[in-house]
């Protein structure tokens, strides 16, 4: 029953009474208890609550009552999204016992859509990282090879989808944290346009970059989830109004024909990647070409500066956002703090892990007197140049294609001693957040070790409908998304 779990099939089967939500929820919970001790995708599982939610949907259907668009579908959420059930830890000791007093906007949306929430997934602490190794609470491995990382920071969400430990998951993406783990785990991951999905109840990392999105086994499921998540929310002041950008029907968009598709690519970006990634991206472009798409070569001269700009801007925002962890209102307080300054400085020193401390320090440095112009202001100007690169590319083509990451999933521990090397692996994903445009990762091949490779499709702001449609074409001609990791 848990083979080839898709949201679109399952919701139909449940709505038609062919499958009971309670049965499928129970089956997935059983898989979690059998397999997750070796994978480590979940930080918490709400078995009783999930079964109650499933039963409620089954009861509604039996009574002939209307149900929501995710009725009875078991979903996992990243543990930086507030949910009043259980804890929301952000993978951090500082929030190790935090029970949110409210639900995130996206959690409200899932519940209103009658979804079943299975549990909370592991992440790099405060979503800062590219491998989930920075989680202060547990390790997550890649279901395709347990000696390798699942990617990050939404590594738990990606691993749970890939391993069939949920039907779909939510992640968050500040510099690639949905797309890169999706690529490493062989699933679909969508970072929507900045402002498309409300960030209310998402624990903030880099507020001008953060965006929540779906992680699924196929493109259609990503469309179904985005439909539920997208829209205006007055509690997030950067949430886009429907007058600025109406939410289209993403499922209808999927069915529409694509004619005269123009795909931009930057030859060096593809050549720079490791050979298996390079070859898979080239094959994907060839496939589109064979289907009638025009490939348009473009240059993006400022793209190469995106990592430098990002690690100023994101850390500056993080240093400000994480100032709220003060040991006073919620979260960890050091038992050895003797005065109020030590309540701050000891609680934070004991509660945060190394990467979070590094980023707070870097951001504080970049914003500090005497360095603000040289670093922060400079980075904001470069951000404008990077956005211009995208605008110019999109003037010539419908979308841009490139790798998600330069390599497939790397070994656990391989990059942990050198933070800069870890940062540099985010070269293809970070510029998308700086420009605020949407980006999608879909499975497009495997390397010699049978590790998945992702194709990144990037479009102008609010072009999610078109990106999903373009991705669906590739998916309909290939079977990479149907392949699953084998594990016992």
């Amino acid at each position, binding site marked *: 029953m848990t083979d080839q779990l898709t949201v679109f099939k399952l919701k139909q089967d449940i709505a038609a009474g062919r499958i009971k939500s309670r049965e499928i929820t129970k089956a997935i919970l059983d898989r979690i208890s059998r397999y997750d001790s070796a994978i480590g995708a979940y930080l918490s599982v709400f078995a009783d609550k999930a079964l109650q939610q499933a039963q409620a949907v089954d009861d509604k259907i039996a009574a002939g009552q209307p149900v929501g668009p995710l009725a009875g579908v078991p979903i996992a959420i990243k543990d930086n999204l507030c949910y009043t059930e259980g804890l929301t830890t952000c993978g951090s000791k500082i929030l190790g016992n935090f029970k949110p*007093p409210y639900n995130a906007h996206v959690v409200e949306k899932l519940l209103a859509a009658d979804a079943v929430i299975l549990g909370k997934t592991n992440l790099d602490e405060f979503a800062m990282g590219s491998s989930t190794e920075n989680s202060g609470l547990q390790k997550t491995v890649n279901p395709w090879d347990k000696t390798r990382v699942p990617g990050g920071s939404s590594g738990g969400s990606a691993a749970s989808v890939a391993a069939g430990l949920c039907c779909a998951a939510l992640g968050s993406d500040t510099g690639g944290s949905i797309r890169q783990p999706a690529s490493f785990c062989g699933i679909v991951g969508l970072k929507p346009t900045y402002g498309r999905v409300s960030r209310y109840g998402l624990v903030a990392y880099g507020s001008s970059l953060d965006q929540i999105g779906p992680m699924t086994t196929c493109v259609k499921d990503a469309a179904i989830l985005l439909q539920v998540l997208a829209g205006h929310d007055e509690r997030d002041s950067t949430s886009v109004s429907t007058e600025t950008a109406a939410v289209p029907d993403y499922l209808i968009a999927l069915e529409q024909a694509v004619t005269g598709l123009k795909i931009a690519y930057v030859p060096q970006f593809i050549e720079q990647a490791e050979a298996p990634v390079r070859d898979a991206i080239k094959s994907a472009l060839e496939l589109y070409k064979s289907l009638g798409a025009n490939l348009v070569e473009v240059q993006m001269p400022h793209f190469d500066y995106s990592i430098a700009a990002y690690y100023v801007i994101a850390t500056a925002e993080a240093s400000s956002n994480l100032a709220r962890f003060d*040991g006073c209102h919620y*979260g960890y307080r050091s038992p050895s703090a003797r*005065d109020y300054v030590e309540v701050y400085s000891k609680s934070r020193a004991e509660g945060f892990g190394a990467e979070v401390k590094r980023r707070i*320090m870097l951001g504080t440095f970049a914003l500090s007197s005497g360095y603000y112009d040289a670093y922060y202001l400079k980075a904001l100007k470069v951000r*404008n140049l990077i956005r211009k690169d995208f605008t110019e590319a999109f003037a010539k083509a419908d979308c841009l294609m490139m790798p998600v990451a330069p390599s497939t999933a790397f070994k656990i521990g391989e990059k942990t001693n050198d*933070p*800069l090397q870890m*940062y540099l692996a985010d070269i293809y994903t970070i510029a998308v957040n700086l420009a605020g445009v949407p980006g999608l990762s879909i499975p497009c091949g495997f390397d010699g070790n049978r590790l998945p490779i992702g194709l990144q499709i990037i479009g102008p702001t609010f072009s999610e409908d078109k990106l999903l449609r373009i991705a669906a074409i590739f998916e309909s001609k290939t079977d990479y998304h149907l392949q699953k990791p084998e594990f016992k």
Partner: protein
Amino acid sequence: MSNQINRQQVEQVAHLSRLDLTDQELDLFSGQLSSIVEYIQKLNELDTQNVEPLAHSLPVHNVFRPDIPRPSLGTEKALANAPDRVDDFFKVPQILDDNSGA
């Protein structure tokens, strides 16, 4: 400008960040932050004299809502995660000394 962050600067930044770091952490971060900051100098290769800074990818405006009172969290929910409390207050160590006259 020097590309290196020296140990003294790291201590100052740790202080500003309210992070009570160990000597070992200060040593580690001095090296790591130096190499990251050195990498960030790459931004100086670009001439940005006539470029506007971009703080937000979308045009963002002030968002107002009608000034109508509405329910908020409530005392118990707001205090539920407090590390320490007394009655309806967050409890913290004494801030002013007894002789400050405040």
